[in-house]
Structures are given as structure tokens and as C-alpha cells.
């Protein structure tokens, strides 16, 4: 159903971003006094929060509309305008596929929109408090609003290109916001890193998109999903079959997801992204943008389900990510860093879920995660704000914060419980669903292998245990115990005991924090409270349906997300074992992790556990498995070397050859061209006159072009039409016009018009059984391959052959010379024929002989290599003893063959008896070679084709004439019907 409100959801934050951006430009702070700045900021945050809030309200309204029973499909669409057409190849040639700017709000994108706008509103509100001391206030909110708008385009776009606009948009905003404090080089570097990692992934999205579109023939998600069953065909790229379309597309799309959603191996950017302001971390790098990958998988769930291979890859990668990130988080010491790795780990959970086909569960985790992770980040931000930590806060310099920041502490605790999987919190339910998906796959017969299910289940259990552990570690160390920065006097750095191996970055913890922390303002704690409530409550939307509890989530998502057969929200669960296993694993993970953390860290002021890890292990974990170093050593290092090399090439070679020289040439040409522009009006007039004369020439002289189409029994000769043209045709090359008053097209029937055509002269072609060359493999004495790609050969005409031919043909009375030229190239190469010429296999017709006769006339012969016979050695020459057979012309210019009758010294016939054959019969007497018939003279096959020369003379209204000649080689079947001087011989 059309709904015009949808675009407004996007337009509001977008407009606000523009307004704020412009206001920032036009009222820089140095022009304003205190009061002005205050007013300006008031304007900015009213706009920023208001626009997103309004979007949220619209989203809520539309979401309620989705429940309308008249909308069974639960889809609202909005077509805004036709964007552009793109031409794509399809089975039936090229076709235009329209791409519209249209949006769709269904159960999937509806929920995501609620998350983006709802949590977005809270974070915008929070940011007004958090960023209150920031100078680039306008810039921040401009970016943040722009991000929201882009994210909404990503979510609501109904087709791939539009989604990609959002996809790139959020990437850009993320880059801008990570590097928000770009004065600090590391922060700017973090932004760049994020951008590069994302760009690698984006390439995957594009490839995946075109793979899908090439089959579905549409960019619309709905169309692509409808075409899911067609995705099982082979997908070839450059002639190489890569697998089914679904597999190829899904793997490439997943590459995009690993970038955007920080999966192994492209996850490295996300922890560094914490360089940005905390609200950014909360909004972009925890709640919304990073889940775009999961969203994309859910959006295209029918396609992914077509490819078990891709699903397996996704499940494995997700599991590895979950485990790896969780293990890194265990030893980290900065609040946002721990949360960042936790995010990566949780994203791994989601993808592991997707990999086992639990799309709905995966997306449920996206939903719940958005609440508690946003709350955690904001809580961390609140703590940092309280102690005036810039960038990040070291938990070993905090402690006891519950005294100073009670509200933050309460919300943080609730969220920690949720993420750790405390029973009946949101995280508990969503993790349980994921585990359930895994165990179900493990223990049921499906398209997906059961080992995948076990792998996912076990790694998720381990990762969840670690999650509970490091989250409570974080909570205890931050909020319980004593505030370790209370005393300014001593060096906090040395106090901490455990960081003997302080080779890691310690920019931020070589000084203590503010001694007197304070609770944050209402703008900051209200969002915390709301989010914490969500972290506890939203889990109840997805109660496990195996126990016949109302599972609103599953039903709701069923409209947009596909599932494996038998896995629907309404399907009765027959085998309860997986359910219990999942439940047990979930609760156990929470209990073990939280219990361990409680024992080790509750009210403690130092970490007595992780430093006891063997040092290599600790360092390995602390340095996030040294992935960055590995990249540095391999890809980046290699790249850098390559770049240096390329740079040198670029400077020395490309800059001169490809840039410098053309630029110089063009400049010279420009100088030359403008010399005619001498400034005097007479010169201008003269050039104008030249143009007029040129046009005059064109219009006053006819331009005939002849076109001929032959078939077996007729030929149609057409001259180009022109105003006032009259035509005369000469069909026999005798200079008289046979058709003096002709129309522009002349059809000749060979049979009926034979007499009228009066073909009297025929150009003979001799096809000789020479050059039994196997092109292109032979690199014979004949020549060599000159250009492999274009298959051009440098061909030396066989000298011995020429000698033979010369011997035969020079016996023709009055022949003075034989000129060779390659037929396709019309290049004469002399009597001896030694010169080389380019041989292009495709258009090679044969050698052409021009036989110049004593009377000055020329006869043409064409010698075609016989390609069918391949003797052992090249050119087995017939040794002629005495005089060879002769080929000549009779008085009418017809081919006449004289098998010789001379005898040798021994009195035997001088020529080999079978050297002249017609139809396998040896000929002894001179005979005429008829049209269409052939004779074998020595190793030469001689054949006669009639070539008709037609000439048209065009006369236009001005009385000017021009003529054009065309040569028609009559087809093989035609000759016998055409009279040659009344004689036809077979």
C-alpha cells in the first residue's frame, strides 16, 4: 500500500542536517557572544533532537498502521520518483531496468526504523549533554543527523542501489565521526582505517548485487527475493564457473557484511572506531550501523537459504568472531574498548545465528543488543564525562563509581545483566533463541550440516560465558571498590601493578582523572534509564515458542524473513531435546561467567586474574590476536612496497608517457588550431567560405555507394538514394551502360537476366592445393606468429611454390610478370614473393596473382591454400621433368590448360601422367576450364569463379556524375547458370 509519510522519516533528519550544517557555516563562534552561542546551540539541539524525534513518531504511527488487518502482507511502500534507468544484459539482449527512489516499510524495516529513530532520539538527547563543551557542536550534530538519514535510507530503501546509497552514506558519516577530533592524528587514522576496511567490503556488496540482478533482472529486493529459486544456476565470470548464483552473490554480500558489521577478518576497524565521541560509538558502532550486515542478510534471507555453502561460511565466521572478540575483551582495560570487542563478539553471535538459518533470532539479537549495548556505551560515556576522561577511560583508574554516579551505575548494572544473559532479561531470550537455532540444526536433519550446529552452539556457549565474565569484570572494576583516581598526588600508572608489559598504547592513562566525579545532567541519564528499561523488557517480545509461550517476534518477522522448512513460529516443536540443551547452555554460560567475575572482582581494586595468564597468552589476547600486526606485515606492508614501486613508476613513466605527452600534444594541437583565429574579419569570412564550399561540394557531387546482396540465383544491387539522382548500370564492365534508365535498385536473376548481363569477361581464380599449413600451430618456414593476441602472422610465401607456379603460369603466352599480393590486404610483394606480409587468419582469402600480359591488360588469379590435406612434409613438390603443364588463356580470355605432350630424353612422357586431372581423370589434351569446374594441375587445384564487375553511374540534378564499381563474386552454385560466352562445361 502506498504511504506518503515514509519519505518524511528520512527527509526530516536530512533537512535538519543541512540546516545545522549551513547554520554552522554562517555563524561561526568568533562572531557570536556568549548569549549568541547559547542560542545557536539551543537551535541546533532543538532541530537535531526534534527532527529525529519526529521521525520516530512517524515511524511509530506507520508501525501501528502495519498492524492494520487490511494489510495482510504488512508492507507499506512509497514511490518518490523515478531515479534512473540502467541497461543490463539479459537473456534477450540488453534491456533497461528502471531504478526508482522508493521506500518500503515492512515488518523488518519497520522495526529497524523504530530502533534507528527511537534509540537515535535518545542518543541525540544524550549527546546534547555529553557534547556541551564541544566547540564544533554544529558539525557534530550535522554529521549525526546525516548519519541517521543515511541509515534510514539503508533500512527503508526498497532496492539495492538505494540501499547502497545509505550503505555508503553511513560509512561516510562513520568515517567523519570517528575522525571527529581530527586534530589528533591517531583519531584521524582510526577514521581512515574504518573507511578502508569498509571499502573492501563495499566492493563485495556491488559484486553481489550485480550477480543477483543479472538473474533477477530487477534491483528491487522484493523481485530479487521472488526470484530466489532461479538463483541455483551456475554463475560464470569471465568463463569460469564460480558456483551457483546464490552462493556467489551471498558470499560477496557477506564480504560486504564482514566489513560493515566487523566480522573476521575485517573487524579490526571497530575497536579503533572508539576514538569517536561516545554517543557516536553508541549509535553507530553498537546499535545501528554495524547491524546493517545482519539486516542485509535478513532482507535477502530467501537467497541465503538457497546456498548452504554460504550459510556454512557465515556460521563459521560468526562463531570464530564471537569467540575471538570475547577472548580479547577479557583482558582489555579500557571501558569503550571492552565494549567494542563485546560488540564485535555479539555481532558474531548474530551472524552465527544467521548462519544456522535463525534469521529471526539473529535479528532479535540485533534488536535487544541495540538496547543494552547503547545503554552500556552511554553509561561508559556518562562515567567518562563524570571523570572528564577524553576518548576512553581506564577501568583500573576508576572504581567505586556507584557513590558518584548512582543512576548510571543502576542502568549499567541492568544492561550488564542483560548482555550477560541473566534469566528473563532481553539478552537471555535472544541468546537463547540463537543457541536454540544452533542446537536444532545440530540435532535435526536439514540442508545445513549438523556439525555446523554443534560448532555454533559450543562456540556461542564459550563466548557467552566469556561475555558474562568480562562484562561483570568491567562492572565490578568500574563501579565497586574504591575510586582509584581520588588522589592526584601519586602516579596512577605505577600503582596498578599488573602492567609490567606496558608496551601498549598508554596515551590516556599516564595521568589520573578528575578527583571529584559527578552525576551527569538529565539529558544524559534519561536516555540511560529508558534504554535500561528496554534492556530488561524487550526480551518478552520473543518468548520461546517451544513452550507454547506467545512469541510475538517470530510471528511478526515471519512476514519479511524466510526460514528453513519446519522452523516457523507456528511449527510444533516435536523434539524438545535441543530446546533443553540450548536453555541449559544459556543459563550455564551466564552462571559460570558471572560467578567467576563476582568471585574475582567484586569490590576489588586490582585485577588478580588476567595478569596470571601466561605472558604470551595475555599479550596475544591483549593485542587482539595480533591481527593488525599480521595485516601490517602482509597486506599493508606488501601494499606499501607496491605503492612505493608504483609511485616511482608513476612519476617516471606514467606521468610522462600517459599524462605528460598527451597533455603536451593536446596543448600543441590547441596552439596550432587556434592559429587560424587570426583576428581579422576577412580570415573569418574566408574560413566560413571554405565551409560553404565544402558543403557545396558535398551537395553538388553525387556520392554513390553500391551495396550488393547475392543469393544463389539472384543478386540485388542497390545504389544509395539521393535527391535528383538518376542511375545507369553497367553490368559487364565494357563501358556501355546496360541499364541506362535504371531505378536505384537492380535485381538480377541469373537465369533470366543472363543474356542481358552479357558476362563476357570473367576473372579467373586458381585454387591451388598448396600450403598445407596447419594454422596457427605450425611455425613453419612459411612464417611466424607476429602478434599472438591478434593472430597476425608474418607469412613468407613459399618460394618453392612460387617457383612451381611460375613455371606453370609463365608458360602462358605473353605473361610478363607475376605479382603477388595478399588478397585480404591488397599488398603487392613483388615477383619473387619473398616479402613478408601480415596474415590474419580470419580474413585471409588467399594469395592473389595478378598476371600482367604483354598487351598491358591484367588478369587476376586467386590462389587459395588448400587447408584440408596435410602431408607429412611441407610442399611435396612434383618434380617436373621437361616442361610442366601449362595454364594459359585462350583468345577469349578463358582459362585453358595444356597438359604437355613433350617427352624426355628417355622417350617417356615428361610430365607425370596424373599431373593434370579433371574429376580424377587424367587429361592429355589441351582443354578449357569451364565455370565452376576445377582441374588439378600438379598439386594445384584450379577452379574458376565468375566475378561480375558492376558499375553504377549516378547523375544528379546538377548534371554531375560519379560512378562506383563493385565486384560481385557469384556464389558457387551460381556459375553453372551463368553463361560464359555461351559455354558451360562441367
Amino acid at each position, binding site marked *: 500500500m502506498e504511504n506518503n509519510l515514509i519519505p518524511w522519516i528520512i527527509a526530516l533528519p536530512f533537512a535538519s542536517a543541512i540546516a545545522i550544517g549551513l547554520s554552522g557555516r554562517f555563524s561561526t563562534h568568533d562572531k557570536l557572544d556568549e548569549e549568541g552561542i547559547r542560542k545557536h546551540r539551543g537551535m541546533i539541539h532543538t532541530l537535531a533532537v526534534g527532527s529525529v524525534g519526529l521521525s520516530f513518531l512517524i515511524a511509530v504511527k506507520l508501525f501501528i498502521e502495519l498492524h492494520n488487518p487490511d494489510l495482510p502482507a504488512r508492507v507499506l511502500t512509497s514511490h518518490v520518483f523515478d531515479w534512473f534507468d540502467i541497461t543490463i544484459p539479459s537473456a534477450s539482449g540488453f534491456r533497461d531496468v528502471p531504478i526508482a527512489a522508493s521506500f518500503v516499510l515492512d515488518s523488518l524495516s519497520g522495526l529497524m526504523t523504530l530502533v534507528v529513530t527511537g534509540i537515535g532520539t535518545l542518543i541525540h538527547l544524550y549527546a546534547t549533554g555529553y557534547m556541551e563543551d564541544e566547540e564544533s557542536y554544529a558539525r557534530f550534530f550535522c554529521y549525526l543527523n546525516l548519519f541517521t538519514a543515511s541509515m534510514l535510507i539503508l533500512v527503508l530503501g526498497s532496492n539495492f542501489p538505494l540501499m547502497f546509497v545509505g550503505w555508503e552514506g553511513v560509512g561516510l558519516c562513520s568515517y567523519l565521526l570517528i575522525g571527529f577530533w581530527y586534530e589528533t592524528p591517531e583519531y584521524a587514522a582510526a577514521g581512515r582505517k574504518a573507511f578502508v576496511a569498509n571499502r573492501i567490503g563495499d566492493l563485495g556488496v556491488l559484486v553481489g548485487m550485480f550477480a543477483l540482478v543479472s538473474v533477477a533482472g530487477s534491483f528491487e529486493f522484493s523481485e530479487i527475493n521472488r526470484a530466489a529459486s532461479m538463483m541455483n544456476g551456475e554463475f560464470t565470470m569471465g568463463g569460469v564457473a564460480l558456483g551457483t548464483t546464490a552462493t556467489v552473490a551471498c558470499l560477496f554480500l557477506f564480504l560486504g557484511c564482514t566489513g560493515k558489521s566487523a566480522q573476521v577478518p575485517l573487524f579490526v576497524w571497530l575497536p579503533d572506531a572508539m576514538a569517536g565521541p561516545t554517543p557516536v560509538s553508541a549509535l553507530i558502532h553498537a546499535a545501528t550501523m554495524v547491524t546493517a550486515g545482519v539486516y542485509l542478510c535478513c532482507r535477502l534471507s530467501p537467497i541465503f537459504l538457497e546456498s548452504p555453502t554460504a550459510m556454512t561460511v557465515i556460521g563459521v565466521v560468526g562463531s570464530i568472531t564471537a569467540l575471538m572478540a570475547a577472548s580479547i575483551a577479557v583482558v582489555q582495560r579500557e571501558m569503550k574498548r571492552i565494549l567494542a570487542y563485546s560488540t564485535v563478539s555479539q555481532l558474531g553471535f548474530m551472524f552465527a545465528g544467521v548462519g544456522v538459518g535463525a534469521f529471526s533470532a539473529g535479528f532479535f539479537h540485533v534488536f535487544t543488543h541495540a538496547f543494552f549495548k547503547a545503554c552500556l556505551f552511554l553509561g561508559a560515556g556518562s562515567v567518562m564525562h563524570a571523570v572528564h576522561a577524553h576518548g576512553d577511560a581506564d577501568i583500573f583508574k576508576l572504581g567505586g563509581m556507584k557513590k558518584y554516579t548512582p543512576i548510571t551505575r543502576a542502568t549499567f548494572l541492568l544492561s550488564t545483566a542483560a548482555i550477560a544473559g541473566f534469566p528473563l532479561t532481553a539478552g537471555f531470550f535472544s541468546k537463547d533463541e540463537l543457541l536454540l537455532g544452533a542446537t536444532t540444526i545440530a540435532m535435526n536433519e536439514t540442508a545445513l550440516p549438523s556439525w555446523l550446529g554443534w560448532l555454533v552452539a559450543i562456540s556461542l556457549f564459550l563466548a557467552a560465558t566469556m561475555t558474562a565474565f568480562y562484562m561483570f569484570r568491567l562492572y565490578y572494576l568500574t563501579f565497586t571498590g574504591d575510586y582509584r583516581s581520588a588522589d592526584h598526588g601519586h602516579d596512577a600508572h605505577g600503582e596498578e601493578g599488573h602492567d609490567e608489559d606496558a608496551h601498549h598504547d598508554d596515551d590516556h592513562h599516564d595521568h589520573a582523572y578528575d578527583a571529584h566525579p559527578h552525576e551527569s545532567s538529565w539529558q544524559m541519564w534519561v536516555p540511560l534509564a529508558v534504554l535500561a528499561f528496554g534492556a530488561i523488557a524487550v526480551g518478552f517480545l520473543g518468548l520461546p515458542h517451544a513452550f507454547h509461550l506467545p512469541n510475538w517476534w517470530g510471528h511478526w518477522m515471519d512476514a519479511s524473513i524466510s526460514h528453513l522448512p519446519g522452523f516457523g513460529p507456528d511449527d510444533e516443536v516435536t523434539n524438545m531435546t535441543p530446546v533443553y540443551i540450548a536453555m541449559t547452555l544459556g543459563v550455564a554460560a551466564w552462571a559460570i561467567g558471572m560467578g567467576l567475575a563476582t568471585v574475582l572482582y567484586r569490590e576489588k581494586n586490582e585485577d588478580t586474574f588476567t595478569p596470571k595468564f601466561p605472558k604470551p597468552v595475555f599479550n596475544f589476547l591483549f593485542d587482539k590476536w595480533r591481527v593488525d600486526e599480521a595485516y601490517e606485515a602482509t597486506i599493508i606492508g606488501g601494499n606499501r612496497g607496491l605503492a612505493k614501486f608504483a609511485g616511482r613508476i608513476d612519476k617516471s613513466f606514467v606521468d610522462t608517457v600517459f599524462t605528460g605527452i598527451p597533455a603536451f600534444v593536446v596543448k600543441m594541437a590547441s596552439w596550432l588550431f587556434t592559429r587560424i583565429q587570426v583576428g581579422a*574579419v576577412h580570415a573569418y569570412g574566408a574560413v*566560413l567560405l571554405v565551409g560553404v564550399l565544402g*558543403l557545396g561540394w558535398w551537395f553538388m557531387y553525387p556520392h554513390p555507394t553500391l551495396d550488393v546482396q547475392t543469393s544463389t540465383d539472384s543478386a540485388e544491387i542497390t545504389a544509395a538514394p*539521393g*535527391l*535528383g539522382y538518376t542511375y545507369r548500370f553497367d553490368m559487364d564492365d565494357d563501358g556501355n551502360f546496360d541499364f541506362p534508365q535504371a531505378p536505384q535498385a537492380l535485381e538480377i536473376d541469373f537465369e533470366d537476366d543472363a543474356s542481358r548481363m552479357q558476362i563476357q569477361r570473367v576473372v579467373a581464380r586458381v585454387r591451388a592445393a598448396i600450403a598445407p599449413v596447419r594454422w596457427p600451430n605450425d611455425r613453419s618456414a612459411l612464417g611466424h606468429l607476429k602478434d599472438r593476441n591478434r593472430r597476425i602472422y608474418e607469412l613468407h610465401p613459399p618460394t618453392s611454390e612460387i617457383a612451381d607456379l611460375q613455371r606453370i603460369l609463365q608458360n602462358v603466352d605473353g605473361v610478363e610478370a607475376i605479382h603477388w599480393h595478399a588478397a585480404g590486404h591488397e599488398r603487392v610483394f613483388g615477383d619473387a614473393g619473398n616479402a613478408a606480409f601480415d596474415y590474419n587468419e580470419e580474413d585471409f582469402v588467399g594469395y592473389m596473382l595478378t598476371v600482367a600480359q604483354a598487351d598491358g591488360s591484367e588478369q587476376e588469379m586467386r590462389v587459395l591454400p588448400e587447408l584440408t590435406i596435410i602431408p607429412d612434409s611441407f610442399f611435396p613438390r612434383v618434380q617436373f621433368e621437361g616442361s610442366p603443364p601449362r595454364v594459359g588463356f585462350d583468345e577469349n580470355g578463358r582459362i585453358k590448360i595444356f597438359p604437355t605432350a613433350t617427352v624426355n630424353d628417355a622417350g617417356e612422357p615428361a610430365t607425370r601422367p596424373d599431373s593434370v586431372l579433371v574429376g580424377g581423370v587424367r587429361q592429355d589434351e589441351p582443354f578449357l576450364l569451364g565455370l565452376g569446374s576445377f582441374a588439378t594441375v600438379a598439386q594445384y587445384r584450379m577452379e574458376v569463379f565468375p566475378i561480375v564487375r558492376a558499375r553504377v553511374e549516378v547523375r544528379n*540534378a546538377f548534371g554531375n556524375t560519379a560512378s562506383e564499381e563493385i565486384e560481385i563474386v557469384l556464389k558457387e552454385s551460381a556459375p553453372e547458370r551463368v553463361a560464359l560466352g555461351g559455354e558451360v562445361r562441367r
Partner: protein
Amino acid sequence: MNDWLFVAPLLILGLGSILMMLVDAFAKEKSELAILSSITMGVAGMISASALLSGAEAADAPEMVTRFLAVDPAALFFDVVICFGGALSALLAGGYLREHGLERGEFYVLLTLTTLGAVVLGRSTDMLSLFVGLETMSLGVYAMVAFRRGSSTAIEGAVKYFLLGSFAAAILLFGSALMYAATGSTSFTGIAAAMGDADPKLVLIGLLLIIAGFGFKVSAVPFHMWTPDAYEGAITPATAFMSVAVKSAAFAVFVRILFVTFGDELSMSLASGWPPVLAGLAALTMVYGNIAAVGQENVKRMLAYSSIAHAGYILVGIVAAFRVGSEAVSAVLFYLLAYTFSNILAFGSLILLGSRGREAVSFNDLRGVGRRHPMAALPFILGTLSLMGFPPTAGFLAKYYVFSAAVQAGGSMILLAILGMLTSAIGAFYYLRVTVFMFMRDPEPGQVKAIPMKSGYVVGALAISSLFVLGLGVMPGDVLEAASRAASLLLG
């Protein structure tokens, strides 16, 4: 009543110019003629635009009018292009003339009447109205070029333009006379109807002379020689006007005459018709215009050569139409609209970047101005990007449509399209040079630094043009639809 709508733009332009003359003569205070003329032309364009977009049709406009002036959608489309070009030029003049001490009311009267002539020319369906419209337009433009009468370059450009222009007009006129001799009719349709029995000699000579005449007006090589001099010599708003409205009007009637009068099979044949000729002219024009623009040091002159190059691209579209039909013509219409706004942006920015005594004319004047005044440099970049054909600007789509029409036409037209793309690549060289000079070069010591003028008019014109350049680039839908409707009705 509805029928009046179709001649309303003409009436408004005529009455508006009379009003302006009266205001200029009798108003004591400095009057805002710029805004008055801009509104006059803007309203005229708006009326045509609304008639065009509403899809209204002149049910039975009086024969007296339709014999001379077309009332079809194509005519309305060209009205829009010409009037908007005129209105924006008036705004540019409003800033420029005042800043440079040339504020005289005649300019706006000339501008409005010239626009009237251009509209008549663009709409004409008869050799008579063609000639009258052409001369009205040309005489006005000659005067506008010479408007800064104390300047030797202005007078020089005007003299050359005038002499050659009159010469070309005489050639064109002789061509139409011969068409009359051949067919006994002067209306486009009348000539076309009688062409079958006409003496081919006269038709061919007529066609040749008409093509030469229009080649001059649209500045196709080798009839282009006046263009750089006239563009350089004229005051910048006049240059802007010439490059958009005058050129559009010439193309409008050229397209109409080619397809209405010479649209039959024989006139379009490859052996003796106009498509090969225009293809040749297009190739020459693209190559010459682009290459010659590279070596220019004067930005106006560079833009003059660039406008020659664009004439080449448009000619490609026209030639493509002989095979592809309305699709190519609609591409041409869209191109003209896109080109109008892009060029106004370029010339307008040039105006904006200078002020009295510090006029920006050459590339050297642009040195560093982008870093000193980024907001003023922005429209220039947008304009050059669009002229270069960079997505998502209007210029990109325009080029895309024209070249894709050429590719669809197939045969040797593909070569023409390839040539067009190659020469566009050369175009990037000199368009980007603007940006390079504005942002990456520092002024030489002792060089006068250009300082942007402060003029609401110019800023307004630039804002409107930017909006259109981006709007047409992103949402060309409605305009394209109107263009293709206009094109298909034009081709009948």
C-alpha cells in the same frame, strides 16, 4: 482563452519591454530594471513551462498565428529554455552592470526584446518568421556585445560578429529564397509538401545555404570563427545570454527545419542528404572546440570554445535523430536545458568572482580565489562539473542521453559517440583547470587579487541554476517526459 496561453509569452515579453522603456525614460530614481526584466522573462518562461507540464494543447489556435509560430510542446520547451536563459542573464546583468558602472536601462530593454526575437525564432514555422525572429535576436545581441562602447575589445567583437552575422544571415536568407523558388512556399510544412515535385537543384542549394547559415548561428566549425572573439569582447552577462538563449533558439529552429522541412527520406539519405554533413560538422566541432579550449588563458574565451564543443555534442544528437527519432531529439532538448543552467553557473560565477577594478577574466585572476572565498567558488565548480558531464549533474545526464542515442543509431554514429566521449575527456582538462587555479595556485606577487562582488541578483541566479543543475541531474523524470513528448510531436 486557452489558445492565448500559447502566445502569452510573446505578448508578455513585448509588453514588458515597452514597460521597461517607459520606466527607464520616466522614472527619476534608479529603477530596478534587472528584476523587472528578469520577472518578465521568468513569467513568460513559467507560463510556457506550466502549459508544457500540464500537457495542454492548443486546440485550435488561429491559423494566422500557427502559420508563423508553432504552438506545440517543442515550441513551449524551447520557450522555457530561452526565457529562463534570458531571465538568469538579466539577473547576472543586474549585478554586473551596477558593479562595473555600466548601469543603463537600454541593456534590459535589449535583453528582453532579444529574448522575444529568440522565442519567435525558436517557434517559427515559416521562413518569414524565422528571418524576422533571427534578425530581432541578432540585432539585439550585436548591440549587447557592443554595450560597453568605450571598450575597444567590445566594439571589436561586435563589429566582427555583426559583419559575419549579417553575411551569414544573408546566406541563410538566400537559402530560404531558393527553397521558395523550388516549392513556391515559405512555410516549413508547405515546403516539405511541395518538395517531391521541386527542382532538386534548388532544394539542394537551398539546403546547403541554410545549413551554412545555421552552422554560423550555432557556431559549428568551420562557421564558428566569430564565437571566441564575440564572447571575449562582450560584457559577461551578454556572453552568458549568447551562449545559452541565442544558441538554444538557433538549435530550436534548426531542429525544426531539419525534421519538418527536410525530414523526408531523400533529404536524409546518406548519399546526398544532411545527416552526413552534420555528422562531419559535429566531429569537426567537437574536436576543434575541445582542443582549442585547452590552450586558452582567458576563461571567457575558454568557455567560448567550450560552447563550440557543446554545439558539437548537440549536433551529434541531431544527427542521431535521423535514425533514432524522437528519443534523440528529446536528448537534444534536455541537453539544451541542462547546458543553459550549467553555462549560466559558469559565467555567473565568473561575474561573481570579480568586482570593480578586480574583474576575474583570465585563469590567473582565479588564482587562490577558491581558498579565499570558497562559497563564491562553489558554483563555478558545480558549473564546470556539469559542463564536463560529471554525475550527478544535469550535464552528465544530458551527455549520456545524447551519446546513448548516437550509439543506438548504430553504424558510423557509434564512432561519432566515441569521438564525443574522447573529446569530452579533453574537456575535463580545461574545466578542471578552473578548480586547479582556484584552489591550488597562489596569486603571483603584485597581482591584483579578485574579490567577489556582493550582489543578491547574481547569487540568486547562481542559486537557481545550481538547484536546476542538481535537480535535473537527480530527478530528470518530469523534464525528460516533457522533452520526449515534445520531441515525438515535433517529429510527427
